[in-house]
């Protein structure tokens, strides 16, 4: 049973009922990153899909942008407790990226420029659940929000949506990524409030 905070009434809005537990609504777009923002020129950008030492697919910016893309609306939930609803994006579905790849892997480690990593089950990247996004709100994605391109997996806390993404490693065994090694939950479902390890 929670302790009642004497004299606290809070500031609630009708929209709060649609939010996962412990989240509050924001209309701006806060930035959270562990280090400096990498600046990646488009002519140097590349994205590789590998299975350990074996590279399965490789794209440069042009061949990546030649892939069919889609627009989508997504609700974002950050582990630091803000949520932003109905954001609009354009990106390439991971179903397209992984489409004709034959693999026995069950897990994925997503890699970024700057050394960031995050892990998730491969099935969470499939079936219209994940995109490599390059436009936000009708504009090219800004570096501080992950541009040129970031992963977008809106059904998990936003740290799983790796910014400045440059590849995915498919794995038979799960391997914790950056925040997953530093006290955050391995899976990160906002609706089950899986913020920190041990929850």
């Amino acid at each position, binding site marked *: 049973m*929670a*302790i*009642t*905070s*004497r*004299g*606290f*009434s*809070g*500031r*609630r809005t009708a929209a709060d009922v649609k939010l996962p537990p*412990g989240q*509050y609504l*924001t209309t*701006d*777009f*806060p*930035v*959270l*990153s*562990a*280090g*400096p*923002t*990498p600046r990646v020129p488009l002519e140097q950008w590349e994205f590789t899909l590998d299975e350990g030492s074996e590279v399965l697919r490789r794209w440069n910016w042009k061949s990546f942008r030649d892939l069919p893309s889609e627009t989508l609306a997504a609700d974002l939930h950050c582990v*630091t*407790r*803000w949520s932003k609803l109905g954001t609009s994006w354009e990106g390439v579905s991971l179903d397209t990226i992984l489409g004709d790849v034959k693999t026995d892997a069950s897990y994925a480690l997503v890699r970024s420029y*700057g*050394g960031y990593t995050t892990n998730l089950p491969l099935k969470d990247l499939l079936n219209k659940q994940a995109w490599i996004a390059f436009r936000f709100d009708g504009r090219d994605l800004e570096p*501080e929000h992950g541009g040129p391109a970031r992963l977008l997996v809106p059904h998990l806390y936003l740290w799983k949506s790796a910014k400045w993404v440059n590849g995915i490693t498919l794995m038979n065994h799960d391997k914790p990524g*950056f*925040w997953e*090694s*530093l*006290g955050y939950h391995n899976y990160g479902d906002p609706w089950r409030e899986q913020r*920190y390890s041990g929850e």
Partner: protein
Amino acid sequence: MWRVGTVVALNDETETARTLKLEVLDWPGHVAGQHVDVRLTASDGYSAVRSYSIASEPNSKGRFEITVERLANGEVSPYLTQNVAIGDQLELRGPIGGWFVWRPQQTEPIQLIAGGSGIVPLMAMIRSRISAGGTASFRLLYSVREPRALFYRDELQTLSNHDSPLKLTYAYTRATPKDWPRPPGRIDAALIANATWPSNLGPTCYVCGPTSFVETVAGFLAGLRNSPDKIRTERFGPTGDRK
């Protein structure tokens, strides 16, 4: 796991920021730089949670401090800075965070750069360094609007006046003390180059403040050839309600 903490002391740092000293009997201890979640619950069960950086050094006494800056449109910070009284109980979870931390085993030079209330987790690192002893040399570059917006003013002054492992540089953005050599202005590349450790000494840099501040400063540090993996950042946006 939520724990119950009791407010045992309050101290105003500025007109808008207050330090709360909390006692938590089963507190597991923290590392400098970590934060804690604070949950407030209204009488009808509605609750709101925000994260606040811990300001105090690690100890085994089950006590720690947070410093909270009151945000004009905040939901939790006005309560913590204006309504809370000594003896009140708050629900707490943590400590949280394993990246933006300083541990006494670190021996490399340490560069701290704070923007406004971003000083809070960096103060925990300074206090941790002082209480643990050791050999690490610290530099702090503290950017603040004006002199009266400084947190921990007397303590920092004392620390930097003595033969201290801390070298302190203030940068004022709107108003300076009398006869201050540098006119008010934001931190620029020249100030970073003059007031921070040379990158060839391999410092670890901790930068905390508003998003635009951290973006700019981290960019300057990288431009001075500090390795990106030695630049650790913590940012709070306009609605982050952090610290």
